[in-house]
């Protein structure tokens, strides 16, 4: 499968601080690719370099087969992290403007604009000024602005942040619809559940370096079946001091436990202490993997000691 985006040993520094460090990455065409990572880890910088908003200090970036990322601009849609729209402009005029800057004619754009506004529940809103829209509506308009030119590659920086569940669902459906038409979608998110459900592949960047890259199965397999979910009469207190326990994530009614030894031996130890109502051997969730990587070392030690 061809790569929609290919990064090879890309490095970017700001005032001597390395924001992205020798990053190598290939985004398969037609896939939904999730960028995850803590704040300040280098996600937005990477996306901006792909968009040619920033230039890498070292390394090579190819977008849609072109090493000159500017050449592919008209085939790429972009939704930045912090949304911006002309407040005084009418919705249709704004969408036409953004679409025309991608090389589309008004005749091509108008049917697409109508189609997307209708799909997102905004039919008839074309003549409204942006300043009269709610935040959710504005974000939908911003999304339409990114897809109105029917791009081959769509880059979305935190597309779901700040949206209520209804609007988030509508936007999720819209992203899937875009992918159904063959568009490669790359989006960054802090919502691990969304990444797990939507992405074909997930990439995690931490302190500028790639720490995860693969399908959810591949990533979870890397971390093995070292996690159990338990519900007991004594709760989290029953886990204290058990030698097999490496860390505990306490959800109150249920605990997610990472083990250092075989699960059946742990079950026997636990059953000797308290009544066990639920015991499930599972893979670590993406959230758990994210936290394992991104949690500061002292906190990790603290958890292990619990």
């Amino acid at each position, binding site marked *: 499968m061809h790569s929609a985006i290919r990064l090879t040993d890309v490095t970017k520094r700001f005032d001597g601080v390395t924001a992205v460090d020798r990053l190598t990455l290939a985004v398969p065409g037609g896939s939904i690719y999730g960028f995850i990572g803590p704040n300040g880890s280098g996600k937005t910088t990477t996306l901006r370099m792909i*968009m040619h908003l920033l230039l890498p200090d070292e390394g090579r970036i190819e977008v849609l087969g072109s090493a000159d990322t*500017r050449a592919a*601009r*008209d085939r790429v849609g972009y939704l*930045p992290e912090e949304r*911006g729209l*002309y407040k005084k*402009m009418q919705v249709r005029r704004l969408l036409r*403007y953004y679409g*025309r800057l991608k090389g589309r004619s008004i005749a091509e754009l108008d049917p697409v604009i109508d189609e997307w506004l209708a799909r997102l529940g905004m039919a008839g809103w074309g003549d409204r000024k942006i300043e009269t829209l709610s935040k959710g509506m504005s974000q939908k308009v911003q999304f339409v602005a990114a897809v109105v030119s029917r791009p081959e590659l769509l880059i979305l920086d935190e597309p779901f942040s700040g949206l209520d569940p209804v609007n988030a669902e509508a936007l999720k459906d819209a992203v899937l619809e875009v992918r159904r038409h063959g568009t490669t979608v790359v989006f960054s998110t802090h919502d691990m559940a969304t990444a797990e459900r939507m992405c074909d592949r997930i990439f995690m960047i931490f302190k500028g370096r790639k720490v995860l890259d693969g399908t959810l199965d591949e990533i979870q397999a890397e971390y093995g079946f070292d996690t159990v979910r338990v519900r007991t009469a004594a709760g989290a207190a029953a886990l204290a001091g058990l030698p097999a326990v490496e860390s505990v994530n306490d959800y109150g009614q249920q605990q997610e436990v990472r083990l250092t030894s075989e699960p059946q031996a742990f079950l026997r130890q636990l059953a000797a202490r308290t009544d066990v109502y639920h015991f499930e051997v599972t893979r670590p969730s993406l959230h758990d993997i994210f936290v394992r990587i991104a949690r500061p070392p002292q906190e990790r030690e603290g958890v292990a000691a619990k």
Partner: protein
Amino acid sequence: MTNKTLIVAASEFNTQTRSKAFMIGLLMMPVFMIVAMGVQKFTRDATDVKDRTFAVVDRTGALFAPLKAAADEWNAGVKAGGTQTAPLFLPRQESFEQGDDQARAALSDRVKRDELFAFVEIPADALDPATASRVQYYSNHPAYRTLPAWVSNTINREIVNLRFRDAAIDRALVSRLTRRVEMSELGLLQRDTSGAIKAAAPVDKVRTTGIPVGMMMILLFSMMSGAPQLLNSVIEEKMSRISEVLIGSITPFELMMGKLLGSMAVSLLLATVYLVGGTAVARHYGYGDSIHLSDMAWLLVFLILASFIFGAIFITIGAACSDLKDAQGMMTPAMILMMLPWMTWFSILNAPESKVSVGLSLFPTATPFLMLLRIMLPPGPPGWQIGLGLVLTTVTSMAAVYAAGKIFRTGLLMQGKAATFGEMWKWVRAD
């Protein structure tokens, strides 16, 4: 120039011409002129016509009667058209001794009580040609000049008449012999293509100075209404992160050039509206032949150059700042540059060939306005000065656009504090 640049230019033009600021700019010059004319007319028509009653202490015993006669003549004159156009002067004769300060104080009190507007003392030796005495005019309205000027002129005219009479000289003869010969100011005679000589036309202030100044004002108002809007536009795009989306579709230089061209089109539209209106007014008053196509061509050339220079300056400020508060501090030098022609055009009008005028009209940011003025003031500057002005301004506009492009490219995606001049210089020098 790319198609995308033109799309940005069209959008900028549409946005600006739909804004309130544009409508204000469009109306600014005509409103300014109408208000100025209205104020003049109002001040002329709404003259204070309150009676000016004043006491006269005539120690010569010979001047009050002619002064009273002159006042009657004045009063008849101001009411001659049916509407009173000036106050009536009503002299009242009073008398007291030279050293009587009590009497002066009493008259002062009457002035304070508004019974009198002023009082005048004419010394006893006023008719003596060798006198060093002065006529004294007392009033608590020092800003009102009409009455003291009239009193002084009238008394002096009568004193001169009486002195001639005492010397047995015929005043009428003296007037006839000392009558001035007036001078007419003319332009030069012209030869047409057949060699026939065309008579010199009288100098007309409207034609020789009013229209050149009007053309310069059209350029100045067009620029003031267009270029500063770029700053708001760039800051809005920066603050709301629109620039990040735009730069994902278009290069920063294309975006900046689109904005410059859009702003230039706005200024051009304003200048056209003003020119059409101004020409119609000029034709109405018989000055239509004073506005030549070559003047309009110069206006266009200088408008393009000024648009690039000032547009680039305001774009630079917008790109370097993150909000309007930051921008206000940086705008001061730019506004001074823009106001320079406004502050200096009058001295150029008085002496267009002086070293100061030549120097100012060759200063690149002022050249578009002041050189246009000098070109339109006969006989106009020498060709080398126009050429040098054009070269300097073109080089400056290119440098301004180049530097703005570099600063725009870097500053557009920066947030937080405004860039310093040192940082901007670093961006300009960066590859």
